[in-house]
Each structure stands twice: as C-alpha cells, then as structure tokens.
C-alpha cells in the first residue's frame, strides 16, 4: 500500500525527523493562503500515488503569490499517468548545499531490512541503480540489533565527513528505522535528504509503502488507503477471494493459483493472443467464487472468449464445474467458453461440463489454441 508524500512526511514529523514547513492544499485559494503564511519562495508539488510527477510538470517553484496561484492552477486537475491531481503540497523553499538519498526496504537475499544510502540524491534512485550501482551503499540491518548507533554511524560516515552532520544523521537514521519497523513499512525513502545552508539535515521529499499483509495490525495506516479505479476492482475481487488484475487483451482467463495463471497468460501469448486479465480464483472449492469470477470477466467488454484453466489440488474440479453451470444460469453469457480441468475430481467435473455442451480440452496448450480459434471467430462476428 502506498501513501502520499505529505502523509509520509507527517510520519517523519511524528518521529522527529526534520522536514520542511508545509501543508497539503486542495484549492488555488488554499495554496495562496499557505504560501502567504510560509513566505516565498515556496514549492508546489502534486500529490499522486504514481511516480514521475517531476517529469510530468507536477512540481513547481513559486517566488511570488502570482507564481504560486499559477502553479497551483496548472497542477491541480493535471493528469499524471492516469491519475488526476486532487491535492498539492505547498512547502517552504529551502536553500541547500548538497542532496543525498536514504531509504529502507526489505532485502530478499539477506532476509532482512536493508538501509540504502547514496550521495547521488535528488534524482530517481532507480536510474542511479542502473547506471552507477556502486554509488548506492547497502547495509543489512540485523533484526536482533535494529539500527544500532554504530551501524547508523557507519552509514553516516559514508555520506558525510563533518562529525556534526554524522551526529545528526545517526539520530535521523535510527528514527527512520524505527518508523519503518513500527509501521510495518515495505519502503521508506527520503530523496533528497539535503544539507541546508545552515548545516542542518532536512527531508525535502519522502515516500512510504507498507506491507499489505500487516495492514490488519496497522489500522491507522490502512485508513489512509486511496485505491484508484483499477485497485478498487482488485480490492472488490479480493473481498470475494479472487485475485484480479485487468489487462488490455481479449481472452478472459480464470485460473486457480497465481503461477498457473501467469503461465496461462504466457500460453495465450505463445499462440499469438492477448490475455484480458489475470484472475486467480485461489485454492478453495466454493462454487460461488466461480460465479463471482464469471461476473467479473463479463463486466469487461473487451473479453471475447473465456478460457478456464483449473489444475485441481485443494480445488475440486467438480466444484468449479458446478459453479460454472450456476453462473451460466444466473448471468447472460453470449461469448464462447473453453474449459480445461485436470487433477482432483477432474472426471466428475468434465462430466458436468459436457452435459452443458461446453467445449472441453485436455491441456493448457489445447485450451489456449481453442480459445484463439474461437476468439477470431467471435471477434469477426462482434466487430
């Protein structure tokens, strides 16, 4: 789960990590008021949950009230990668000497939290990672020690020579780690962390992502969730026990298991088709889930054929077949359906499918090929 910059910085502030004086605003008038309070220059920054706002023109420096109103006017309502900007952060303009990057995330290989630090702050860290990976220092944080003072010092000395900056950084890094742990974060970043003209460390921008698995014990964070349209559909699906992601193709798939679902999509592509979605109905045998899954597929107007690929383990094929029949009775399905059932109770399931006069195939490959064949036909009819 992601939150906005201004929310991340509210967390920073609560952990006494120094941030700029700033306020989130929803209208041009609010921006003007806040800018007036802060004094010029101010920075007006789009608050959206996607990256790349800088390149999209979502961050502007304003040296006067006029410029502030103009910036707010341009940014509010702007579209950034499909997200409409509904709020901006107005922050004091700060003079600084140098920019750094610091961040915490989970490292799969060491199975630990790692601290990342770089003197190349202020630019997209992914680009630094690609072009100059040695410029990013990585430190594995032992979960038994947490961010101990010596480790924080070790990191700080990689970025700073001045002992006063090192001391500020040691304090800041320990707080940042504690924030990461306390909130079950999956990513915390300050980029840039700047040294002001007065020699103080200051977080100019902040980012926090959270572990979805831990949201149950982080109600305050869960409450900050702002899903976009696609995410709302995914969440809705999740509440029904389905894992759904909409894509741009024409072949709707219904599969049990994420890996098999991806392999199914790959198979469709292999035979020249385009999957319309990722849809994992999970490991349970509840026929109602199949009904819900069919409704979801039917709600996507791009879907011209449905391919059902089930390898029964915990999932029983006869339950899936029964669910499908129920779905066909409940909802109006006027596109072809290809069914492949293997594993637990496949025989019983196929019996049910055959009685409904649905095409049955024996393997994933065959299913994809059959779906392609039917799709071409149906797309000719429909177009």
């Amino acid at each position, binding site marked *: 789960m992601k939150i906005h910059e201004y929310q991340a910085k509210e967390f920073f502030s609560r952990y006494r990590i120094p941030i700029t004086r700033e306020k989130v605003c929803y209208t041009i008038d609010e921006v003007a008021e806040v800018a007036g309070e802060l004094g010029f220059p101010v920075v007006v920054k789009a608050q959206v949950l996607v990256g790349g706002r800088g390149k999209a023109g979502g961050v502007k420096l304003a040296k006067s009230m006029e410029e502030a109103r103009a910036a707010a006017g341009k940014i509010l309502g702007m579209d950034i990668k499909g997200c409409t900007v509904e709020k901006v952060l107005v922050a004091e303009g700060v003079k600084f000497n140098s920019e750094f990057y610091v961040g915490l995330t989970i490292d799969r290989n060491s199975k630990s939290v790692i601290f990342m630090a770089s003197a190349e702050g202020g630019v997209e860290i992914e680009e630094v990672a690609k072009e100059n990976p040695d410029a990013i220092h990585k430190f594995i944080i032992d*979960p038994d020690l947490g961010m101990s003072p010596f480790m924080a010092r070790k990191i700080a000395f990689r970025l700073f020579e001045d002992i006063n900056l090192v001391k500020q950084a040691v304090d800041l890094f320990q707080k940042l780690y504690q924030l990461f742990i306390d909130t079950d974060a999956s990513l915390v970043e300050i980029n840039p962390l700047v040294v002001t003209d007065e020699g103080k460390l200051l977080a100019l921008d902040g980012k926090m992502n959270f572990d979805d698995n831990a949201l149950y014990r982080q109600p305050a964070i869960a409450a900050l969730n702002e899903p976009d349209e696609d995410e709302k559909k995914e969440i809705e699906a999740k509440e029904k026990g389905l894992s759904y992601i909409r894509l741009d193709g024409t072949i709707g798939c219904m599969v049990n298991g994420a*890996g098999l679902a991806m392999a199914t999509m790959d198979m469709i592509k292999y035979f020249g088709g385009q999957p319309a979605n*990722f849809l994992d109905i999970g490991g349970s045998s509840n026929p109602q889930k199949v009904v819900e899954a069919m409704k979801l597929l039917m709600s996507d107007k791009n879907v011209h054929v449905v391919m059902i690929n089930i390898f029964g383990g915990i999932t029983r094929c006869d339950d899936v077949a029964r669910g499908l029949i129920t779905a066909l009775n409940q909802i109006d399905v006027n596109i072809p359906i290809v069914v492949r059932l293997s594993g637990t109770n496949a025989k019983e399931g196929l019996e049910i499918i055959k009685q409904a006069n649905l095409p049955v195939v024996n393997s994933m490959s065959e299913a994809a090929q059959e779906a392609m064949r039917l799709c071409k036909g149906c797309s000719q009819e429909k177009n």
Partner: protein
Amino acid sequence: MSILINKNTKLLVQGITGRDGSFHTAKMKAYGTNIVAGVSPGKGGQTHEGIPVFNTVEEAVKSTGANTSIIFVPAPFAGDAILEAAEGGIELGVCISEGVPTLDMVKATAYLKKKGVKLIGANCPGLITPDEALVGILPGNIFMKGNVGLMSRSGTLTYEMVNQLTTNGLGQSTCVGIGGDPVAGLYYQELLQMFEDDPETEAIVLIGEIGGDAEERAAQYIKEKISKPVVAFIAGQTAPPGKRMGHAGAIISSGSGTAAEKIAAFEAVGVPVARRPVEIPVLVKQLLAKRN
C-alpha cells in the same frame, strides 16, 4: 534417498484442530505420512484424527520425537508458530499460512538461522517425497516416485509441471513448493545443493516467476556448484510491469526481475528454459540421455 522428508519424518501439525489443519491432516495421513502429534493450545490431552494433541510444541516433541512440523495457524500467529517450532526442537518447519507479515518472517528467519533449523515457506504448498511422505497441501495422486527433483515458487503451476513429468514417465525424488513471499525459508540455492547431494536425484526442474532476482542468483549458483542437469521454467513472461500477480513476489518494476532477464540468465549458464510446460519432460529426457 530424497531431500528434507522421507519415511523417517515424524510430523507434527501446528493448528491441527483448525479448518485447514484438520482437512489436510486427514489428506496427509491418507497419503501415508507418519503424523505423530498435533498442537492446539487448550486442547492438550485430546486426540484428533487419532493423533495425540498437545498444548505446546515442546511437549509434543518431548512426547513423540516429532522432527518436522507443518504450520496451519492463521497468518497473524504464524511467525510465532515458526519460532515455537524452532525453539521446541523441530528440525524442519513447513509454513502453509498465507499473508504472514514480512517483518514477522524477518524475525523468524533470523532466529531459525541462529538455531540451525530449516524452513519451507511461508505461503507455500509444502513438499512431497512420493510414496514416503507428504508434508503440505499438494494433491498426492499426481506424483510418482522417481529421480527428478523439483522446486517451485508457485503451487498449481507445480502440479501442472509434475503432471507433465508423471504422464511422461518421469518420477520425482522430492518436489518442494518454496512459496512466493518476499522473505521465505529455504530457497533455490539451498535446495539445488540438497538435490546435488542426493544420490537419488538425477535431474532438477526449477520453476521460477517474475520479480526479485532469486532466479538470476540460482543461475549463477548452478554455474558454480551444480553438476546435475537442470531445466527451468519462468512464469509471467506476459505480465505487465508494476503489477502484482497474486504472489507478492511477482512484481516487475524498472526493468529488473523480468521473465526475459531470468530466461537469459539461465540460458547463459547452459540451463535450458522451457517456453511451455509440455517442453519440460522433453528437455529433461534430452539432458538425461546426453548425460548417460
């Protein structure tokens, strides 16, 4: 032989009286797994499916000599259950629970390392040594005893692969579902080494997914340490960047962890990568023929 589990496995089920624990205990028992004990706090002294139930892992281990534990407790308690298994004297934990907070796994895996205890999962289907022991939720009937070792980040895709192997006459030594969570127990490298050291295993199938760089590291490890033939498969070649595909692991972001990169990494070290599941048994047979 085989790896991790066999006829000598004495299985403990943590969460034996729960819905999933109860269901799969019956399945595992029916497969022939030697289940010696269950744990369910407050139900110590009872029996469940004919298996004695204890309040704590420690008691269960002391009373029954259990050496392996499968964990079915709900995600918020799974991290603690793993710790209890390790502290209680279990040698191998298998955590099926889905949705365990990552920081709980960070803590648990650090403790396991300190204690020298092995873990499979969490969020995994478990593992099986055909005809000897099933410790997980895999459908036992599709497996066949043999000489192919298999490891996979996914569940049902594993069944698909195993089905291809079995129907083509290729039995399995041990099949392990390692799970797709960001922080998990044994992973490709450890399992590759175990299969390498297992005299019964003659070929290895590695099933990967997009996201992370575990496959790239595995490829490097194969180059350096593995002499047995390995065949790979990567799911998610068509997954769009930045989207999660069910497993937390399956994310592609900023061009790292894509299927193309993973396939290239394997092919660079001479590991053939199947484009479709049906190719897996073909490739395995080719490599085995070349070797003999």
